[in-house]
């Protein structure tokens, strides 16, 4: 897909080695690349211009840092600027001094207001509050039902006196909902309104009327992360029409770069408070400016990757597999353990996608694109065609067993041989790395053999060279074993992909150190240790 800003800038700076300071001409050359990167991420043109001016001003005459090359230095400046805009005014949800706190949701059609109402309700309920959802979307067919179902799933009460589908007055519903909440002692009221366009004066007036009727503590503007150049117009129309205090970015689980976040934060100056990233009621989180900045720049989103890994991996199972691998306790690390780890990685999403989230993955983009997901299916088929005995101890696979397995899986003996050999290689590699509480991972991912002419030995040394585990490389304090066990598998695939030829090892090192991981990771581990978020 798109090249990352880092790739683009590397190209610009190719002939710039040995300079001690960035000249204006150098900066101009980079400005174009930054502009393209931001436009591809859907950042508003006006915002891009302002932003570039700010970056230029900061970048001119900056001393070339000892440790960073010009590319990294510019990326660092851009990244810092992005974070400062995105997180300039980060704040928590306010609660009214005298309950009920009223939260009103507004936004375009299909931006995800009703779904968000449910998520917000559940989130507040888990914080010990008693929220009430109010069905003030009487426009869209069965929006009221949808809110009722969502409320039911979240275990939150819904106030829906009108059937909707064009019947009833939303302003009246909103007004009575406050009285209802006061008499029934709900302390937070979440008002779900109909989707409306910024240009629809009549509906905007209606939204303003709802606002005046309920006097909300917070008005949240819900916006789809996929929105394009129109984000600024729409946000401005809502800011003028009803006003809002914070922004919720929805559908962040897609692959949109979400430049709208930047546009809105910059133009309207309201903080982005929440990020909504999935269809489940729990897929809802506070907004992280640093992650969003990386995402807009296409620099990979390591923290999200790790979180996803945490969500999908069964920590206990991973730890058990790791133990088997290292110490031989609880049986030998066999093919079935291998398979379950592989399936765990796969649950996080398409492999190419997962690998793409790793910073520095651009260096191995071609290999990533060459991954055939169906390779894993074939691999599963081969392992499933083995007896339990063969799976736990693949050494007993002799010629006749292998030919039986090949027949069962509808493949050739050569494929079976390749799998078994790779498994042994990878296992050896993992065991030799087994210094720390590392492992339980993904030895010898399929697809790796699709990589163009790469000697197998190389991938193994690489695996050792770049310790696949960011926590191990970058954090000073040792992390807890379970966390380690979960984070590690996500990394091993990259290691066993043999990160391209030659320079990529060093590149990855650079990309990683450039990524300022230690603090973030440390934070994450602490959070993890404090309990569920």
């Amino acid at each position, binding site marked *: 897909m798109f090249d990352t800003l880092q790739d683009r800038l590397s190209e610009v700076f190719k002939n710039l080695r040995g300079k001690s300071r960035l000249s204006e001409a150098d900066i101009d050359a980079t400005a174009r690349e930054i502009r393209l990167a931001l436009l591809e991420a*859907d950042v508003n043109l006006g915002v891009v211009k302002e932003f570039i001016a700010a970056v230029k001003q900061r970048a001119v005459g900056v001393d070339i840092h000892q440790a960073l090359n010009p590319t990294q230095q510019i990326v660092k400046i851009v990244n810092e600027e992005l974070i400062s805009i995105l997180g300039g005014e980060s704040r928590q949800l306010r609660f009214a001094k005298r309950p009920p706190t009223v939260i009103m949701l507004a936004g375009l059609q299909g*931006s995800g207001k009703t779904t968000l109402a449910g998520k917000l309700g559940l989130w507040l309920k888990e914080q010990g509050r008693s929220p009430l959802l109010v069905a003030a979307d009487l426009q*869209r*067919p069965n*929006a009221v039902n949808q809110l009722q179902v969502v409320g039911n799933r979240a275990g939150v009460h819904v106030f829906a006196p009108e059937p909707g589908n064009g019947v009833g007055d939303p302003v009246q519903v909103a007004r009575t909902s406050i009285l209802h909440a006061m008499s029934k002692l709900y302390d937070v009221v979440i008002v779900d309104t109909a989707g409306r*366009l910024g240009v629809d004066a009549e509906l905007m007036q209606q939204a303003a009327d709802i606002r005046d009727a309920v006097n909300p503590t917070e008005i949240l503007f819900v916006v789809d992360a996929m929105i394009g150049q129109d984000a600024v117009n729409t946000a401005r129309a809502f800011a003028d029409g009803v006003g809002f205090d914070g922004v919720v970015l929805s559908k962040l689980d897609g*692959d949109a770069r979400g430049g709208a976040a930047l546009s809105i934060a910059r133009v309207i100056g309201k903080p982005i408070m929440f990020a909504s990233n999935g269809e489940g009621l729990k897929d809802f989180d506070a907004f992280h400016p640093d992650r969003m900045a990386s995402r807009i720049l296409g620099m990979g989103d390591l923290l999200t990757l790790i979180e996803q890994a945490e969500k999908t991996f069964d920590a206990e199972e991973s730890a058990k597999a790791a133990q088997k691998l290292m110490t031989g306790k609880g049986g030998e690390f066999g093919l079935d353990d291998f398979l379950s780890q592989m399936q765990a990685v796969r649950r996080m999403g398409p492999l190419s996608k997962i690998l793409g989230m790793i910073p520095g993955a651009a260096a191995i983009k071609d290999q990533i694109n060459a991954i055939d997901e169906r390779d894993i299916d074939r691999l599963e088929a081969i392992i499933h065609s083995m007896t339990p005995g063969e799976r736990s101890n693949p050494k007993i696979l002799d010629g006749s067993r292998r030919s039986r397995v090949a027949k069962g899986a509808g493949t050739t003996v050569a494929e079976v041989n390749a799998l078994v050999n790779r498994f042994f290689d990878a296992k050896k590699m993992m065991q030799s790395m087994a210094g720390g509480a590392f492992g339980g991972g993904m030895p010898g991912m399929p697809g790796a053999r699709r990589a163009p002419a790469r000697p197998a030995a190389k991938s193994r040394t690489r695996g050792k060279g770049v310790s696949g585990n960011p926590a191990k490389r970058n954090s000073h304090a040792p992390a807890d074993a379970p966390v380690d066990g979960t984070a590690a598998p996500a990394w091993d695939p990259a290691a066993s992909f043999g990160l391209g030829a030659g320079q990529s090892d060093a590149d990855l090192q650079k990309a990683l150190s450039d990524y300022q991981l230690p603090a973030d990771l440390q934070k994450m581990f602490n959070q993890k240790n404090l309990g569920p978020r």
Partner: protein
Amino acid sequence: MVSTIPEKARRVLRDELVRLVNPGFDRSLKVDGDGVPGVVLVVGVNGTGKTTTIGKLARVLVAEGKTVVLGAADTFRAAAADQLQTWGSRVGVPTVRGPEGGDPASVAFDAVQQGIASGVDVVLVDTAGRLHTKTGLMDELGKIKRVIEKKAPVTEVLLVIDATTGQNGLTQARVFADVVDITGIVLSKLDGSAKGGIVVQVQRELQVPVKLIGLGEGVDDLVPFEAEAFVDALLAES
């Protein structure tokens, strides 16, 4: 007429854009099955307006004197089937639905089967919104289409793209085209301030024409796409 340089430039730009959008594209809807009902499958990411588009499309088809059955294969989102049924009853066409959380492919199959049994002209199948990055959901979509085709060929696969969508629209279209082989695009919510320029790129790269545009939540707010009007709106001063 004395035309200034900016005016000339604008005209050239307009002509180029119109050519890019290609007014000559065949934008007619294929709703005629060969002896069986024509089947229209409507797909897209979440919240683009699939259900609304189906409601409006049903109205257009009914107005043309065709008989229609709706298939509520969005069994995932809360009350989606109800929403479709409401649209169906507005234009007086039956809706086939299954249990919430059920297999969408089986609902689609039932809808087409009932369409064949009652001899209707067109079956419109609504699907759940899905982000193109969710492999499992995209596989499910592929299955829906395969299962329908056991009964009758899918004559039209419409991808609904929200006009507010930015660069991501192209990625969406690529993935959906890959999975279900889309044959047309519906550009929804064009009545707002967004202009939906991304479809130019989508149409050019995938060679799939924009067939319809959505202009609001009313029953009559679905109209055929016109290249020239679209380009003029694109270039209009805001």
